């Protein structure tokens, strides 16, 4: 801390550090870690079921699948938003009320989703791919499907409240979202190196996710309408486009929010500020467009899509890798290189997060190549790459930030911490590696029961997943135990 404090002026602490704000942060940390852990248990159960170690009837399997997907995506959103809020409030004035309202509305949504799955038996997967929600085939009714959609809508409104607050605060401080993003500096060429990276990233998240949620809000209600008014038949291809637009943007933005922790935390260890430059601003401006236009790579196997859309899906996916690897990861490495940083668990986690993101992007890009997608789409290669950058990218960034916020003093970590960290990293890589290798061998995604040649892979995945679960349990326990000491000014 001292090196950084000595070399740069600390960020102006704009939003007051009140007990209520601290409570809000602690609430997010506690809820986030608990739900992440529960959903990981659900994940391990699925792997064990596929590995024939647990006998899970398909209806339960797909309910767990739906729960795992919806729960992880929602929690990733909340946790990413918590990281963003934690740092953004140092530069602009955020309200605690909006932040808490997001949690409140999300909890309402969670209750509805749990009711829909638990009581209604809804198992249409988190992607609720139209027209599946209306075709439960006796497993779930329209009421259950509708409850699920309304649950999502409640969560969406919660996020809108939070993003509106962030947008407003950024506009109050910087004049417009374009200025928050640094577009004016990019155009004029006069880059202010003190312009906070956290503000740039937050602005991107706000712009992109408001559009994503708008798309989601439309497609969710159209799904509801189709459930009750069969006379209105939606175009399945158009619905698919909107669903993947919404889903891709939402889950992608969770990482772009969590990465704010990287920009803020690494400099505090290295004593080198993360200076904004033209490449940085340019790449974040580009990311706004890239994240909005990359989703057709989910639709490469829909031959009814126009060719230009498929080609765009491939090319934009390639381009998306550049900001991740050559701006954020590169920047993190240059910042760390021969800095004399003292390593402890928060820093390890944050750097692991950057690695997981940068490395996870690679199989994603490979899969976005249409030729590859022809044989890899909807195999386990797909969960392989997104688990890589969520489990090893987004989650470590979040855990690192939370731990950082809780360990302002006494950051020394015990040998056990080190062991757990490496256990998490290595088991995580193996867990994702098993997914990827399964994809290479054609093992289908979202199968409740496996053919004999596939079972070994699932068992390996279950073992690795269990190790990851134990390690995250330990890390999560550490954070929860230290949560009362959390500081908003760390």
């Amino acid at each position, binding site marked *: 801390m001292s090196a950084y404090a000595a070399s740069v002026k600390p960020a102006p602490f704009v939003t007051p550090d009140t007990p209520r704000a601290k409570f809000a942060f602690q609430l997010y940390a506690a809820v986030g870690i608990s739900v992440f852990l529960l959903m990981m248990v659900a994940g391990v159960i699925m792997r064990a079921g596929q590995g024939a170690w647990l006998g899970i009837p398909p209806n339960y399997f797909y309910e767990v699948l739906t729960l795992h997907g919806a729960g992880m995506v929602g929690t990733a959103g909340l946790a990413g938003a918590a990281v963003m809020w934690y740092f953004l409030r140092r530069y602009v004035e955020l309200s605690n009320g909006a932040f808490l309202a997001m949690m409140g509305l999300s909890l309402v949504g969670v209750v509805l989703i749990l009711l829909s799955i638990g009581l209604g038996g809804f198992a249409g997967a988190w992607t609720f791919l139209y027209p599946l929600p209306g075709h439960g085939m006796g497993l779930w009714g329209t009421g259950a499907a509708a409850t699920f959609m309304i649950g999502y809508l409640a969560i969406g409104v919660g996020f*809108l409240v939070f993003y509106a607050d962030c947008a407003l605060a950024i506009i109050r401080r910087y004049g417009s979202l374009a200025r928050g993003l640094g577009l004016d500096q990019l155009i004029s060429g006069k880059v202010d190196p003190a312009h906070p990276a956290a503000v740039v990233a937050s602005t991107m998240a706000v712009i992109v996710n408001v559009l994503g949620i708008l798309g989601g*809000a439309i497609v969710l209600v159209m799904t509801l309408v189709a459930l009750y008014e069969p006379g209105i038949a939606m175009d399945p291809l158009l619905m698919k486009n909107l669903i993947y637009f919404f889903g891709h943007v939402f889950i992608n933005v969770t990482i772009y929010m969590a990465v704010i922790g990287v920009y803020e935390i690494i400099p505090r260890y290295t004593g080198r500020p993360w200076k904004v430059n033209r490449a940085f601003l340019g790449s974040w401006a580009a990311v706004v467009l890239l994240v909005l236009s990359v989703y057709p790579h989910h639709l490469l196997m829909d031959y009814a899509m126009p060719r230009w859309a498929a080609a765009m899906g491939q090319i934009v996916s390639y381009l998306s890798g550049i900001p991740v690897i050559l701006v954020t990861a590169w920047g993190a490495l240059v910042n760390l290189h021969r800095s004399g940083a003292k390593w402890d668990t928060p820093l390890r986690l944050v750097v692991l997060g950057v690695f997981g993101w940068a490395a996870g992007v690679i199989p994603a890009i490979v899969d976005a190549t249409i030729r590859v997608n022809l044989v890899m789409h909807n195999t386990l290669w797909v969960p392989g790459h997104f688990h890589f950058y969520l489990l090893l990218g987004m989650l470590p960034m979040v855990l690192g930030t939370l731990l950082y916020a809780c360990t302002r003093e006494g950051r020394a970590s015990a040998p056990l911490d080190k062991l757990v960290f490496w256990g998490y990293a290595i088991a995580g890589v193996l867990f994702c590696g098993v997914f990827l290798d399964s994809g290479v061998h054609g093992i289908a995604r979202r199968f409740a029961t496996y053919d004999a040649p596939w079972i070994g892979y699932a068992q390996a995945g279950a073992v690795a997943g269990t190790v990851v679960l134990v390690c995250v349990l330990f890390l999560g326990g550490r954070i929860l135990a230290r949560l009362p000491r959390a500081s908003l000014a760390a």
Partner: protein
Amino acid sequence: MMVHLDRLRAVVRAAASLTRRLPLVSLLLAVLLLLPPLRAFGEATMVRQMLVQMPLIVLAGWCAGRAWVRAPEGSRAARLRSFADSFNRAGATGIVIASFTMILWMLPRSLDAARLSFGIDALKFASLAFGLGLPVAWSWVRCPPIARAVIHVEVIATLARFGWGFAAADERLCASYLQGDQERAGMLLVAAALAWAVVVAWRPLFGGLGGGKPAAKADRRDGAIA
């Protein structure tokens, strides 16, 4: 020169007094629209009913609400309003009422009912004016900026949802309107959603880019989201 200035002032004064009478003028307009020939004209097609007649009625109600909000201190209208205000902190109640009114009158069944029955149509006029236009004028100024932003997104989504639904339906949803008319109305609603999105997003996105002091701009009471 002086003469010209005087004349200009007179025109401005006249315009101002007309604005003051706007609520009266607009309510008159609403009543006129309800009269049989104009009513038949305004409801002859779905496009006209949804995109011309109904917005005009809402506008009439909005003008009335605006006048109510600006009623001079001490007047009866102002006293009534300050009592009503205590039930409408942050504009919550008014916005709830307005939301239901808006959605109800976009349902195909309501469009049909209004077209086919004079009584229901009169109800439509009254509720669009006093259950949508007026509450919006009354509540919007009291809405916190975050709520305004969320409402904007919801309105955009609602227009797009109904528009898409009307455009996508493979049968006539209104017994009173033809399929082509319905599709046209749907596409226009989607266009309205897009236009609304561009209009409300422009300032927050690019508001400060043209120069000027950002901080001063941001301090305006309306907030840039409004």
